């Protein structure tokens, strides 16, 4: 909801580059929802997603001088996805550690709070069920497919923006997206057939 005194993005970036933390924080507030949602969908863990998002914003502030010409959102999302990849690699190297962290945590499912629009409790429950099924499927995809599917279908980015966000050619975006969607479809067919139309005919 743009307010009358809302500053232009390029103006905020200019100010932030000169060390204006308040200007940078305006950018944080604008993009934190999207950054956090991407991190959560890539990592599947609310706490890890919060750490990754915080880390990514800090890195973005430190690397602002590298932002030239390109727009802020894909540049930021690139930092977010790379931070998440690093975490996933780290977790893959030390599976015991992450298991320990899961056991110790108060919230065993590591679930985030979901954004709730005006909807009935039944609708909300249905949406959450869909959300969890989709998240399970996403976590079964290789991370590079997962990132493309999340940016395209969850966040609604264009092929061009995804290409800039992930630093891969548009052709690669198309092929990874199709493979990711196909694998996710096959996962849902196997584990949640009730969510897909082909099951209605049986």
């Amino acid at each position, binding site marked *: 909801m743009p307010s009358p005194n809302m500053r232009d993005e390029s103006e905020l970036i200019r100010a932030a580059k000169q060390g204006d933390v308040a200007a940078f924080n305006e950018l944080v507030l604008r993009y934190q929802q999207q950054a956090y949602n991407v991190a959560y969908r890539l990592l599947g863990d609310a706490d890890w997603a919060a750490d990754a998002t915080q880390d990514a914003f800090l890195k973005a502030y430190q690397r602002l001088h590298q932002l030239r010409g390109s727009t802020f959102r894909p540049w930021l999302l690139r930092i977010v996805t790379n931070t998440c990849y690093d975490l996933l690699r780290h977790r893959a190297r030390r599976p015991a550690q992450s298991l320990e962290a899961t056991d110790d945590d108060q919230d065993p499912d590591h679930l985030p709070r979901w954004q709730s629009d005006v909807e009935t409790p039944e609708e909300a429950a249905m949406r959450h069920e869909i959300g969890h099924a989709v998240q399970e499927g996403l976590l079964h995809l290789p991370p590079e497919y997962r990132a493309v599917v999340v940016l395209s279908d969850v966040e609604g980015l264009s092929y061009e923006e995804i290409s800039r966000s992930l630093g891969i050619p548009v052709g690669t975006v198309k*092929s990874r997206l199709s493979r990711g969607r196909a694998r996710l479809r096959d996962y849902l067919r196997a584990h949640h057939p009730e969510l897909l139309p082909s099951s209605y005919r049986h």
Partner: protein
Amino acid sequence: MGRLRSHHVSDEELSLLIDGQLDAEKRRRVEAHLRTCAQCRRAYEDMRATVLLLRQAPRAVPPRAFTLTEADVMRPSRRRSRPLWLRWATGLVALALVLVVALDVFIATAPHEFGPEIVSQAPQATNVLSASPSPAVRGMAPRVAVAPPTPQKEVSVQEKRALAPVVPQEASPPSSPPPTPRYDLFKWLEVGLAGMLGVLILLHLVWRS
């Protein structure tokens, strides 16, 4: 069967069709195929439903604001501002120390080439030693003096290796102390470089905190 299969629509074509990214001719061909092939139609409908599910998936709400404080941005930038010269200097001093120690050990364990020189300078060395006997040198001398010449040959390879860097056994006769001005120079160089390295590491720690 082979001919029929070649007409099936690929997942990439289905995906592009969903996004409206197929050119007109390809799109006509794919849509014509979907009308006649139930298998491809199901694949398409399920993929489209999958995309719709992703779009409807609820959004995770950030548990807190991720705004940065002055302290957040100060801490890492101070750490990063550790000057470049400090890193270079530390690297160079560490390298120099390693080289000097390596050369020292090399000379000490290669007696045939340096032996005569060392022996010829031996008297000078005793003078230097008597003036300022260093703990390292004192530690070396008795071992050499105690070791009898014959059993030395029976010492196992491992033992020899373990002793080699410290005692240039074959270089000097057991009766005369091995240190020479050359060793003295190495000693002071090593002590000096180690000291410098210590100071630089301290500087690193100061910058980090």
